[in-house]
């Protein structure tokens, strides 16, 4: 029986054959994982999976330091730091008139190495993104489990957060809690813990700010479980809602979150989901304060297709998993974002994150 990774490589051979290309060069470690089950960490060194559609075989180009890291899944050819990858690249794809390559991953300088071999280069990135976008059952189960871990983390946090604790301290407790789940991978993590006015800054990082009574605390964090991500955002209030404005925008953001989720089913466009959230917030008068798209796909990558944005007309299909995370940010006051992970099912959708979204459930008694 062939495994899921071989099946995926087979599908890629078919796609390449259909487009008349013999070879594809894939380097994004996330894509390599998707096609082989092996997570490579090449750092700045060149590494690539070369799919040969004509012979239906694959091989991995690796720096010598990563010898044997493919664990027998695909054959390896390695190069020494001192010689560089040019020769093995030429051996692997030389003589091809055109190849498919991950243009969103490889940099322009690498691209020139291939162009110099006389290869015309086509982007294989979109095909890979399309394949990765629709998850199989095992992938969905893995993301579901990752979602259970973030749900459990929120329950844990609600029991221990109190005034005087700093953003960084809470972040550390969450990191430790998440890491201890067997299967959680520790080479990447995203845990955003923000308190008070800091919550108005979308891309702020945990600081030494100490929480105060009445503060809003925004927790946007992920669990990276068996190389699949979940991603959740909830807002807590310490003791009470210190600022009435925050209660007002909380209800609006919640309405937008629900309206967008309600839209999700096969056949609907991603932009329509974004519009549902955006219209809701715009009608409430805060359109200008909703600074980002409504969501992003979730899987091996924390941000991947399908992006739920106003300009993405991709049609939703069964097996897609993405976030719904509208938000309103008021400088000097604070920000609210409510994020869930949603799976497109045959008849509609299933929400993978289960933590309550009711404001009253997030007023922390301590």
């Amino acid at each position, binding site marked *: 029986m062939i495994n899921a990774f071989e099946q995926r490589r087979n599908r890629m051979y078919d796609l390449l054959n259909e487009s008349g290309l013999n070879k594809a060069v894939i380097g994004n470690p996330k894509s390599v994982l998707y096609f082989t089950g092996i997570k490579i960490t090449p750092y700045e060194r060149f590494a690539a999976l070369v799919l040969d559609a004509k012979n239906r075989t694959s091989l991995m180009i690796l720096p010598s*330091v990563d010898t044997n890291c493919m664990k027998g899944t695909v054959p390896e050819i390695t190069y020494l730091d001192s010689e560089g990858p040019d020769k093995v690249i030429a051996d692997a794809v030389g003589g091809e008139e055109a190849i498919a390559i991950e243009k969103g*991953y*490889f*940099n322009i300088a690498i691209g020139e190495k291939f162009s110099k071999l006389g290869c015309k280069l086509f982007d294989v*990135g979109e095909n890979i993104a399309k394949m990765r976008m629709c998850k199989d059952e095992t992938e969905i189960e893995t993301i579901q489990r990752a979602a259970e871990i973030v749900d459990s983390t929120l329950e844990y946090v609600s029991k221990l957060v109190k005034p005087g604790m700093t953003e960084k301290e809470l*972040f*550390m407790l969450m*990191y430790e809690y998440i890491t201890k789940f067997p299967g959680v991978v*520790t080479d990447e993590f995203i845990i955003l813990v923000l308190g008070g006015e800091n919550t108005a800054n979308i891309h702020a990082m945990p600081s030494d700010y100490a929480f105060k009574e009445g503060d809003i605390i925004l927790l946007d964090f992920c669990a990276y479980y068996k190389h699949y991500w979940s991603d959740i955002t909830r807002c807590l209030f310490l003791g009470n809602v210190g600022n009435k404005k925050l209660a007002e925008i909380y209800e609006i953001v919640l309405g937008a979150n629900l309206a967008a989720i309600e839209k999700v089913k096969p056949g609907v466009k991603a932009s329509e989901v974004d519009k549902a959230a955006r219209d809701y917030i715009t009608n409430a008068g805060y359109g200008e304060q909703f600074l980002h798209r409504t969501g992003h796909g979730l899987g091996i990558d924390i941000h991947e297709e399908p992006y739920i944005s106003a*300009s993405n007309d991709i049609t939703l299909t069964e097996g897609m998993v993405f976030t719904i995370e509208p938000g309103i940010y008021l400088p000097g006051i604070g920000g609210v974002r409510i994020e869930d992970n949603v799976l497109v099912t045959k008849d509609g959708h299933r929400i993978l994150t289960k933590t309550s979204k009711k404001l009253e459930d997030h007023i922390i008694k301590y």
Partner: protein
Amino acid sequence: MRQEVYEKRRERAYQYLRENQIPKALVGQSLTMYYLTGAMLHPYDRFLGLVLDAEKEECSAIIPGVNLNCMSGTTVKEIVYNDSEGPIKALVSALEGCPLLGVEMNYFSMRIGNLISKLNIPVVDVTDIFKKMRMIKDEKEIDLIIKASECANIALAKLMPLMKEGVSEKELALELYCNMAKTPGVITETTCIQTLAGPNSANPHGWPSDNLLKKGDTVTVDFCTCYQYYWADLSRNFFIGEPSDQLKDIYKIVLEANMAAIDVVKPGIPAKMVDQAARDIIEKHGYGEKFLHRTGHGVGLDIHEDPYMDDVNELILEEGMVFTIEPGIYLENIGGIRIEDDVVVTKGGHKVLTSYTKELDEIVIR
């Protein structure tokens, strides 16, 4: 660091660009952008770029809406695009009419390259200009790397008592992370920690797993500490109980190689001489084939950056360069030994920034 530091760096960048007849340049690597502005941005999947106008001596940042105001406090102008329109209009407005554009080709993806080519401006690679600037550290930068290495020493000393039979690699990594993260000034958003025990340590790029430490194991602890965005990188091996003669033997060889390479570091010699010094020792003892990688890499804002200590790099060492010296020997199914220090090139020779003990007796846990 104060804004003037970044302004001075931009002035130098303008000057280098003018010397190369490049009127404008587009850079995007987060660390280069930080080096030039003091603003640390995380692009995730979105486009971020800095346009340096060498003639007008002006700098603008092309940023998505979510990063609005990220340049406040600097003289850098923000050109904001929203998620649905993408960055192309902003690029056109910043670059229209430019006769030649310098591009960080080792950073921007081929896909962004295609976007840039739509502007119909001839392009030239400017990666090296910024690599070279970042390669020579000023006193403040060296101080930060020293601070980072002090944090690393402390964290490792705290970890040592926990290294015993039955503890998992992941537990060690978590403890090390928490020890570092608690130090004010330590940046917690990225981490690079290897704690590999027994045969796992034979993989130079392995990742901490649920594997438990056993008697007779060697444990490689290779980890990086990021202090105010500057990295120190330190590796030591420990032994759980008395090591076998074979492990003792290769430990002594690697240590000899580490010290021989450090010894040759001074201004005026090519990087490859440093690599050769370590490689000669290991080859002399018959383990040349098991030294799978170069001897070291630069450290600074990036964990791996120029200068690289490999056996072909002719780059001449200069005062202010900081890099690792980390020879290793890896024996499949047995284990690996790597001893890594960070070294700065000084006027009269070098200074070792990492001070953790390398005495075999002091790293055997009995």
